[in-house]
């Protein structure tokens, strides 16, 4: 649906470098990256607001690179929504149809339909200043959807909202996309937000796309230590890798050693970064008997327990200078009867040890 080929754009000291990306029809695609990584710039290129230095952008099979924003068939919801402050909600939403010189009655009908769909009928005659953040967001969505765009581009659509409503509005976005079948590109910097909405995700880092995949792929198999840090992998350790039969032995700085399945790993040996997600560490008060082959078993003592309600996070000190973060479901934690200060045993399956190149 959207195909970006070898896009390059330099702006002042920042550059989008060699970006290629394919977003499938009816997909909910998330561009995830930290502030200043170039996500907004990339969205503006898709909109046609920034002339690109080289490369091609195709939407629905048409090369839109030379086209103006109004001819690209896109709906755009920028950061902070950018509603027209001098127009009522009704006129904000109807703006696109007015530009098409549609008949008054058909504009009215279409705007009413959209306001109904997004639940903002009661706001029709209000001005944007009088709306709450969530209401503004829905009006901006309706305004972008009125021309039935082939592609919907959302730039940080929930960042301006408070934390309590963000989650539910994200789920509404996802439902809206499912019902309208509009291919959607959603820019965000929040990892949890991405997990709620994304079919697939592209990680943006310093003007490049460093990984594309499903949320679970990015979560479990980040392509680099930067990505891992950004998706809050929890435990990242520098290590020296060495082959050991069917396993890869990973001697971490600090005195602990992990084993990973060798076929999963591109690197044979050398300096690497090891990632173990906190939920993939199995905690027990006693050393497991007969662990499955390849399982890494470590001993440690619990330093700190943080109860986050649904989730409990534990800091476990292992070896000389290694602290591992372990997370458990609340119910699981309650049944484990582990408390701060306890001596525990940790087990990690070889397939849960993810090895990355040293950056």
């Amino acid at each position, binding site marked *: 649906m959207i195909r970006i080929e070898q896009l390059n754009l330099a702006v002042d000291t920042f550059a989008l470098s060699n970006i290629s990306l394919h977003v499938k029809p009816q997909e909910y695609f998330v561009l995830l990256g930290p502030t200043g990584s170039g996500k907004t710039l990339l969205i*503006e290129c898709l*909109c*046609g*607001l920034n002339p690109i230095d080289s490369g091609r952008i195709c939407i629905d099979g048409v090369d839109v690179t030379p086209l*103006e*924003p*109004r001819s*690209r068939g*896109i*709906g*755009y919801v*920028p*950061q*902070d929504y*950018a*509603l*027209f*402050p*001098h127009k009522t909600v009704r006129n904000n939403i109807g*703006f*696109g149809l007015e*530009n*098409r010189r549609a008949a008054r009655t058909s504009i009215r009908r279409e705007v009413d339909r959209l306001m109904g769909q997004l639940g903002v009928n009661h706001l029709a005659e209000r001005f944007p200043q009088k709306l709450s953040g969530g209401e503004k967001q829905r009006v901006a969505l309706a*305004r*972008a959807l*009125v*021309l039935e765009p082939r592609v919907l581009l959302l730039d940080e659509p929930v960042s301006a909202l408070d934390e309590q409503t963000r989650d539910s509005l994200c789920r509404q976005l996802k439902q809206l996309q499912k019902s309208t079948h509009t291919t959607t590109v959603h820019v965000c910097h929040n990892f949890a937000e991405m997990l709620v909405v994304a079919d697939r995700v592209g990680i943006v880092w310093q003007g490049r796309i460093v990984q594309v995949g499903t949320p679970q792929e990015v979560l479990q198999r980040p392509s680099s230590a930067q990505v891992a840090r950004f998706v809050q992998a929890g435990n990242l350790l520098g290590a020296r890798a060495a082959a050991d039969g069917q396993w890869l032995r990973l001697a971490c700085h600090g005195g602990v050693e992990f084993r990973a399945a060798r076929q999963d790993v591109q690197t044979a040996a050398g300096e690497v970064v090891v990632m173990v997600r906190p939920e993939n560490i199995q905690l027990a008060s006693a050393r497991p008997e007969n662990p499955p082959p390849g399982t890494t078993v470590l001993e440690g003592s619990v330093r700190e327990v943080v109860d986050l309600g649904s989730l409990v996070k534990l800091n476990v000190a292992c070896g000389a200078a290694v602290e591992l973060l372990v997370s458990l479901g609340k119910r699981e934690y309650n049944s484990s009867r582990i408390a701060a200060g306890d001596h525990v045993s940790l087990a990690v399956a070889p397939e849960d040890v993810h090895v990355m190149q040293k950056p």
Partner: protein
Amino acid sequence: MNPSLFSEPRTTAPVTGLHGRLFAASMLAFVGLFVLGLLALFIADVSYINIQAVAEVLRAPEIRAALWLSAWTSAVTVAIGLLFAVPMGYALSRYRFPGHAVVDSIVDLPIILPPLVVGLSLLVFFQTDVGRWIEATGMKFVFQCKGIVLCQVLVSASFGIRAVKLTFDGIDPRIEHVAMTLGCTRAGAFFRVALPMARRGIIVGGILIWTRAFGIFGPLMVFVGAVRFRTEVLPTTIYLEQSVGRIEVALAVAILMLVLAAVALVAVRIVGLGQR
């Protein structure tokens, strides 16, 4: 004075404790002194005035002519000034080009330049070959009403440009971007979105141009002179009348201008505050 319309301090300081009270009192004393000084000046004006003389004087044909000339020249100046201010304010706010900072400074120059220098420069310009050629085509400026407008535009347009630029600086370009994705051309987005949003700032710019144009005196003396019924505007009247000792007449005109300036100031405040 413009900026106060656009910014307010993030929080204000509450006054606590003896130290705090003494400190606030000493800072506010300067405010009181300055404001009282200004008020004393205006009260003196008002107490000195002779209503009968004023009424008589305002019926004088030469003063009526000056009032009329001031009114129409400043109105034309506002129109011309805004014709430049709107596109220039927009261009300086939205576009970055090589030499942007230099151009921006040159635009500010007439604000900081002594107005008299502008008048003299105009006089000199029309003695150069280019100036002579322009006058030879029939567009006469020196010692003409047209010259009043030219002079006023040069010394006042920058105030309007600055106000309009500030207004566009405060309008998120993303609003225009959205309009462009909704079927507008670049120009369409400007006329349908940016311009209506900037209307208050443009009005403020117009008022600022007007106040400056209306009050200008020095450059007019140099460039168009002070000929009764011909190039006499209200400030010229004040000067001419007081120089022959008729201070009541000068004062009557001055108070009229004072009131108009106060009205303009209040208008700027009200229009500008609504802008936030």
